[in-house]
């Protein structure tokens, strides 16, 4: 059971990473990056790295998404590529 949980998350991870880079609108890119952080936090929790997962959840999904959004609000939202 644990094995294919791993695989599902890995596939989702790769998908979110690629989308986050490809999507034109920076706000949604930040959102998807938040999801990416949250997913990788799940993967680590499954791998037994509880502390790292907790930090990634708080720091990655939480704060860095807020910083990205704050910057996008203060600059242009449309990205050319």
């Amino acid at each position, binding site marked *: 059971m644990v094995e294919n949980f791993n695989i599902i998350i890995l596939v989702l991870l790769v998908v979110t*990473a690629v989308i986050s*880079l490809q999507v034109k609108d920076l706000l949604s*890119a930040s959102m998807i990056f938040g999801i990416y952080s949250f997913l990788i936090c799940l993967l680590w929790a499954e791998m037994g*790295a509880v502390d790292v997962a907790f930090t990634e959840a708080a720091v990655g999904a939480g704060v*860095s998404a807020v910083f990205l959004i704050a*910057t996008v609000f203060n600059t242009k939202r449309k990205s050319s590529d």
Partner: protein
Amino acid sequence: MVDFIEIFVERVVHFIENVVQPHFNYWSYVVLMMIGLWGLIAKRNLIKKLIGLSIFQTAIILFYVSLGVKADATIPVFDYEAEKSKSAAVVLPAEPSEMGGKSDGKYKKIDPDHYANPLPHVLMLTAIVVGVATLGVALAVAQSIFKDFGTLEEHEILEKIKTGDYVKHD
């Protein structure tokens, strides 16, 4: 023709079995890292570059964490019940204070394979925080660039530097 396909399938399965399978999880971090690196170089928007950079760093953290994984090992927090129930021989005091605080080394019986390796986790705590700190500074610099150039697209910025029409402070 048929046996040719069988041989081919058998070889692919064999290949997956003992080349990919044992190291599959290690390949995952390589894939993520390459996505991050590709985003870092190919993307023209500065914010996208930073997202690529963060993916690049989290991939490295994934590699480190997968170093310390042990099959069927619990999280690296010492739990009383498991140690107590595991073997009666381990006479564990209910509370360390009963022992007057002195440990007489009875815990040697702890089986290290039961717990995940804590060292990579410590290293990665540091790496995550360093990653956020760098992201914060990079975003601040990006905003400062936006203040001067009015755009975050790399090719437009280079254009403006060539033509020199950015805000010139005294």
